[in-house]
């Protein structure tokens, strides 16, 4: 065979990245759960673009990283690395971080970018005006003003310490996926701010109560833990989850949600209930639902599948105040089981739905165990995608429970993961936001006497303040 002879001497240097282990992990996280494989390193391999293309072409997605004294600049390229003397347009993620301070944050943008390789340089130019040029033979780096500004770089250097190019594995070959992954953290922050600032409609109540109801094992308690985890920024396990012959959750539990930043409770609560089962006298009694909706059931009430709630069980008044009622019901269903629910289960769900409507409570459906969770929302993480809204499961839920598609929500609970993911947080926050909107719609739609009976007079602001105080006491009791 006709192979080129080996040229150049072997430099006795190990091929090892300059990234710290932590930096490597965080960069891999930036693109989902990527894996980086070092292909080219300027201090080991020949300092020319030909060597770059020899090592990096036909490898799939790549990430080029340039090390300066204090900072690192990088560009992830979704398309294959170009051959020498050619160019390629690709979705790219541009990023920078301070060396050894990556935990304090990465600046990152997703831009359509033209990547060119000629005999002396590797050039990346985004259509929006960012330009980065690597001159390997002289270890030179050019960054134009737009790069420095948008990636928040402090200095403009012409000499770099090292240039490394990695292959990036384990990601979807889809520009939308890249955009979602890179921007998920930002969107998470937006949702978080919105939820922190949320106030129930007209401050009629200090906290909205959201009831989770659904079959055994559909993920109700998992959703509670997932919401708590998303707000805490780490995995929490307050609602006991697992699998057993019957419902793990046998008590009515009202969970307040704490904001990790402010250490305050947020103005909504999740109410967890016993799971529904096919058989009569098993699982949650559907006759218990109206009592729960009206706010007659106290926190930690022990459900009895064979005996529905009787009013004499409690010291509560027959007509509890608005703040103790349920303001939104979420039917929690495993997306993988929606199409195979038994007729008895469907009948139970429909009965509950009727009670919910009769009580004037807001209503959503929450589909759990969504494996393609990165495809639920569009590339701007604003709306659900048509691919998801047209799923059989969504249509079935819409027909079964008469819930509009916009209120059929999808999440992937934290059940087997050990780390949080910004995109999962976004889905959880988005679902929560829809629940709060449904609750507000219901509060807005309340008959005037329902609001007046609590306050004496709807327009009496002093009563609203009193309501606030009672809510404060209640909140302190809960925490």
């Amino acid at each position: 065979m006709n192979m080129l002879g080996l040229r150049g001497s072997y430099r006795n240097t190990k091929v090892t990245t300059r990234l710290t282990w932590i930096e490597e992990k965080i960069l891999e996280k930036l693109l989902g759960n990527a894996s980086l494989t070092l292909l080219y390193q300027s201090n080991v391999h020949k300092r020319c673009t030909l060597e770059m293309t020899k090592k990096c072409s036909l490898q799939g997605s790549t990430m080029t990283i340039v090390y300066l004294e204090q900072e690192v600049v990088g560009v992830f390229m979704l398309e294959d690395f170009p051959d020498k003397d050619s160019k390629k347009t690709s979705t790219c993620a541009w990023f920078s971080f301070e060396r050894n301070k990556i935990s304090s944050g990465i600046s990152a943008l997703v831009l359509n970018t033209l990547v060119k390789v000629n005999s002396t340089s590797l050039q990346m130019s985004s259509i929006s005006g960012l330009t980065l040029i690597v001159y390997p033979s002289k270890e030179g780096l050019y960054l134009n003003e737009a790069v420095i500004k948008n990636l928040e770089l402090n200095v403009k250097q012409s000499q770099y310490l090292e240039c490394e190019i990695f292959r990036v594995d384990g990601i979807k070959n889809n520009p939308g996926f890249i955009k979602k992954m890179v921007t998920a953290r930002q969107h998470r922050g937006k949702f978080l701010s919105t939820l922190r600032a949320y106030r129930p409609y007209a401050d009629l109540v200090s906290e909205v109560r959201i009831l989770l109801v659904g079959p055994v094992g559909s993920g109700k308690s998992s959703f509670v833990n997932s919401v708590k985890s998303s707000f805490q920024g780490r995995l929490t396990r307050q609602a006991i989850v697992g699998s057993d012959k019957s419902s793990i959750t046998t008590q009515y539990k009202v969970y307040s949600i704490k904001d990790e930043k402010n250490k305050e409770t947020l103005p909504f609560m999740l109410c967890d209930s016993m799971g529904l089962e096919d058989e009569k006298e098993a699982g949650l009694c559907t006759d218990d639902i109206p009592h729960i909706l009206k706010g007659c059931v106290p926190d930690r009430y022990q459900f009895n599948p064979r005996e529905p709630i009787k009013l004499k069980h409690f010291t509560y008044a027959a007509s509890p105040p608005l703040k103790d009622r349920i303001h939104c019901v979420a039917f929690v269903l495993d997306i993988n089981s929606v199409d195979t629910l038994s007729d008895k289960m469907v009948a139970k769900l429909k009965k509950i739905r009727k009670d919910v409507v009769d009580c004037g409570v807001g209503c959503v459906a929450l589909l759990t165990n969504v494996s393609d969770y990165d495809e639920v929302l569009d590339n701007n993480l604003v709306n659900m995608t048509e691919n998801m809204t047209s799923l059989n499961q969504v249509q079935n839920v819409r027909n079964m429970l008469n819930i509009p598609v916009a209120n059929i929500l999808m999440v992937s609970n934290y059940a087997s993961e050990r780390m949080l993911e910004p995109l999962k947080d976004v889905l959880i926050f988005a679902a929560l936001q829809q629940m709060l909107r449904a609750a507000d719609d219901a509060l807005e739609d309340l008959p005037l006497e329902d609001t007046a009976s609590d306050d004496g007079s709807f327009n009496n602001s002093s009563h609203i303040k009193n309501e606030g105080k009672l809510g404060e006491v209640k909140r302190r009791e809960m925490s």
Partner: protein
Amino acid sequence: MEEALKGRTLFDQAWPLRWKLPSVAALGQNLRPDRFQNFKRTVLALPLDSSMAMRTRLTWEQEKYLRNYFGEKKFCLLYKASVQEFAGQNLLYKCQDQGPTMVVVYSEKYVIGVYLQEGFQENKVSTTLFTIQETGLSPCALGPCLPLSLFRYEETSDFFILLDKKTVTISSEIRKVLRLPSLSGDTFIQECEAFRCDELLDERKTRGIVGLCSNLLDALRNYKPYGDLVHQTRILLLGPIGAGKSSFVNSVKSVFKGSITHQASVGCDRNGISDKYRTYSIMSKNDSGPLPFVLCDSLGLSENEGLHTDDICHILKGHTPDRYQFDFRKPITPNHPNYIHDPLLKDRIHCVVFVFDINSFNQLSCELVAKIKQIRRDLIKHGILHLALLTHVDSLTWITKGDLLDIYSCNPVKVKLGVFHRLFGFALSDILVVSNYDSEWQLDPVKNMLILSALKEILYTANGFLEDLPLNK
């Protein structure tokens, strides 16, 4: 720092079978919304060849055979013939000057490889041939060879690969050593892959792990029980005899002390060494008082002679004094001289950890499994949060120290966690894995990382319990 705890290996990558061609991609979104408000939309077309995966055919087990023989390596795929063309020049382009390199070819039935100690370079390098079969790896040392000579035809060669012809040729003598059948002629190859062989636990990673452990230690030393409701969180360890409960206590103590300690008795006595109720405080290295959590060790669980179920209730409620001598026939009663009659919150158990040996939990008797499940249901009823801790993960077949770095991604561990999840019903994220210190004389940062990470999850779970307490308790 939690992000650093988990990564994924090449083996775990799940390449999507579907990909979509977006008609319009609204690019230009950035993390700071003020910029690029006038960005234009662009139509993108994705070339088909981008859907081909640079992914190795090697299974996790095959990589493990390779590591057992060539050392703890991470195999970084550099060249794959079906993606980058069956051409020797392309392999050379990808592999030159990459350090230790391994080339693997796959025929219909066999995996055959070449390990080049110093990689592709101008000089002769130490060369080892091998095959990987069901029974393991069969090596054949060739001695110093010119790398190029392995990829061209020479009549006198014992071994060569011709990529453009997709054949590998092996002499009958070498075939015998490699335990290949003595067929004559060339063997057709379906695929060829080449890897750089990096150190799995290099200095860079070790430094990162040490830094991570340091951060974890600081976080745990600064841990505070929720709302300062108690001065010390109390963690009860429950589990079958020999599961490693006391060993875990010693491991935690060792990590915080900075050297190996064996204060909690550990042994292999048939009835289990831990026959007393012990509450162990943990001292920090600088001896600035005990840390704000206590590990409570108890008699092991068994079908008949282990910890009495009623004794568990007493421990949970805080009635059982330190050093109480258990009697499996007779639980503690209020008549006991040291019985705590009116326990406070600080005397109660705030989190329970079920401890099992990862190798033997699936050999427990049906009666014991049922007993443990019932204990768990009782805990659920009383709202006591609990986790599972699987010990001795490093003694699991195939697991070596390098695997501890990303232990939850290792195939054998995944299988075990799945079995445990189905047997006992714990959520997968509630099952923790550690490797206790048993025979070592010195601490190891990778083991420390597992122990500290598990302890952090346990303490956060205890805080969840304290946060959820009703006011009147």
